[in-house]
């Protein structure tokens, strides 16, 4: 029996190497489960493992593959457990900035005058040099974007507001039934969910690093109410990776998760995948969605229009942050943008630190209750 246990633990280790998060408690549960179902039946072992070791649907195909290798007699299992992880590729912008550290300028910007910082805030992110990027990184790190709020279902005590029958009765009980003090209540407030969709295709690559850092700052500020996805040729959810405290580690993990950095754009299709898998189920529902993209659509722009319409119907507000919108003489004429424009509440620039702060102020404004849709459509998106 000892021997079998080693085999099973080995299998769990192989799974962990394939990227699944199965810690010791899961492995223990797996061993216990196999005791209950027995080891004779291959499919019973398969299900025992799947039920105890997997924790999300994405785990299932990985589990299936590993199970086939380990128990199906394929060649892989012998070397699989000990094999080191492949070294992840780093984001281009990140390594460029690392190179800049050596030229000695990198420390000075900390002491830079406020006016210089202000200039940097307005500079286009795509035009920054290595040292400026480093400075920008520090400025991003100290941003504290306050999460937008929405009215919650629950009430809390308040000095003013409607009567609270519950609290008043509780108070009455304390005084033996005499109505001494009336208790009042008002709606409490909770963070409204914010969804950041970041286009990481080739044409957006000069902005990708800064945008991901911005996303990290937002996620760190309110992890429970922020979701981040990258769009390119595929859609990837990176919220979990960005929840790490250390920005470098978080960005590295996110870049590892995203398979299509600097690839092509099929905004319409990836947006559809986002809406099918996450958006319609609830993540986009009632939240403020910010789409960072230049709108260079390689795919079908009619599809993009359809999906934007769908998104707008689900979300409380849709903000499009378009780096090109910050440039002089910009006209929204690209086919993708034209198709999406009618379904956007607000088109903003999003090309500099200053404009990112602007994006955030719109997120907060548009999430206020009582803003009618007509009032909301006041940007370039007026139509």
């Amino acid at each position: 029996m000892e021997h079998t246990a080693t085999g099973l633990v080995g299998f769990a280790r192989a799974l962990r190497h394939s990227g699944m998060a199965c810690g010791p408690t899961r492995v223990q549960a797996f061993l216990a489960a196999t005791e209950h179902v027995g080891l004779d039946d291959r499919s019973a072992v398969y299900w025992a493992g799947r039920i105890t070791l997997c924790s999300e649907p994405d785990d299932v195909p990985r589990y299936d593959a590993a199970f086939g290798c380990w128990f199906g007699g394929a060649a892989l299992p012998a070397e699989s457990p000990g094999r080191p992880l492949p070294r992840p590729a780093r984001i281009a912008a990140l390594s460029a900035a690392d190179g800049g550290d050596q030229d000695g300028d990198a420390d000075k910007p900390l002491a830079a005058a406020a006016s210089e910082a202000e200039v940097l805030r307005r500079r286009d992110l795509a035009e920054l040099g290595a040292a400026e990027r480093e400075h920008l990184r520090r400025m991003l790190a100290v941003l504290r974007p306050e999460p937008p709020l929405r009215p919650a279902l629950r009430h809390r005590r308040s000095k003013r507001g409607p009567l609270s029958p519950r609290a008043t009765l509780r108070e009455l009980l304390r005084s033996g039934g005499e109505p001494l003090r009336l208790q009042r209540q008002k709606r409490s407030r909770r963070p409204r969910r914010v969804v950041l969709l970041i286009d990481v295709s080739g044409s957006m690559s000069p902005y990708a690093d800064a945008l991901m850092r911005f996303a990290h700052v937002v996620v760190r500020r309110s992890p429970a109410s922020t979701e981040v996805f990258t769009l390119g040729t595929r859609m990837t959810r990176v919220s979990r990776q960005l929840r790490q405290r250390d920005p470098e580690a978080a960005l590295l993990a996110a870049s590892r998760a995203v398979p299509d950095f600097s690839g092509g754009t099929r905004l319409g299709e990836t947006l559809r995948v986002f809406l099918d898998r996450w958006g319609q189920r609830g993540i986009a529902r009632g939240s403020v969605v910010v789409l960072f993209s230049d709108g260079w659509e390689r795919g079908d722009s009619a599809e993009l229009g359809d999906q934007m319409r769908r998104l707008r119907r689900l979300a409380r507000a849709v903000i499009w942050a378009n780096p090109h919108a910050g440039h002089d003489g910009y006209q929204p004429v690209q086919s993708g943008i034209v198709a999406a424009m009618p379904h956007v509440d607000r088109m903003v620039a999003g090309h500099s630190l200053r404009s990112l702060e602007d994006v955030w102020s719109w997120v907060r404004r548009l999430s206020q209750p009582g803003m009618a849709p007509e009032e909301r459509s006041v940007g370039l998106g007026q139509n």
Partner: protein
Amino acid sequence: MAVDDTLDMKSPAEVATALDETGYLPDEGIATAAFLAMRMRRPLLCEGEPGTGKTALAQALATALGVDLIRLQCHEGIDAAQALYDWDFPRQLLHLRTLEAASAGEMDADAAESSLYTPRFLLARPLLRALQESPCVLLVDEIDRADDEFEAFLLEVLSEYAVTIPEFGVVRAPQPPIVILTSNRTREVHDALKRRCLYHWLEHPDLEREVAILRRRLPGLEARLAEQVAAAVQRMRQMELLKPPGVAEALDWAQALRALDQNELDTEIAATTLGAVLKYREDVERVRAAGVVAP
């Protein structure tokens, strides 16, 4: 292992048979998941597309075991008072007034107060009821709709199977209830809760099982019609719809066709009854354009 006789099942196959008898047709995965949840005394987290039978599993399990199903429907802003217990203030107040009147003002304050915090005035909500009435099946439905704080609170209850009521003492389940949590993945469930649970991802049933489910749930449904409905629904699931139909929709459709005295699914009748299966105008249009009925 001290397991109550009513809940003792020897193997996943036995669970499958018991579920089958209630009209729920499980595949091997569901049967094993339910079996392990009972044997290992761990909550079972079921995720999957809407309409794959997550909630129905809990109901079928309760029926199969002959125990009560206690259901806690989660929603945004749910808190401990709605899930665990609350005191019945109006009745407490009335009681106090009665005491006052009966004792003509010579009431012992301590005794009066302690008489207020008794089971008589305790309103047990689903979680407390599940602990008190165990063995039972506790269904925590759509946990992804609740807030993070509630998840943390639930974790506490589910790891101890006991709660402390300050005025009252500890309520501990004589044996842990069988707990089924469901989630539609509108939000990721917290890792800490996932670690505590067994996990099962439910897929839509395959053609054969769906036909069997239709015929089981709608006795007297003609085999040919059941097969046609199941095949059409299976094809719709391949079509990238906004809302792919679940088993519940297939059942609705078959029922609608039966109500119209149809023994066969042809293009015409399919087109007029699509509303029973598809809930989006875009989906209806797409399916009409592609044609769902096998020639």
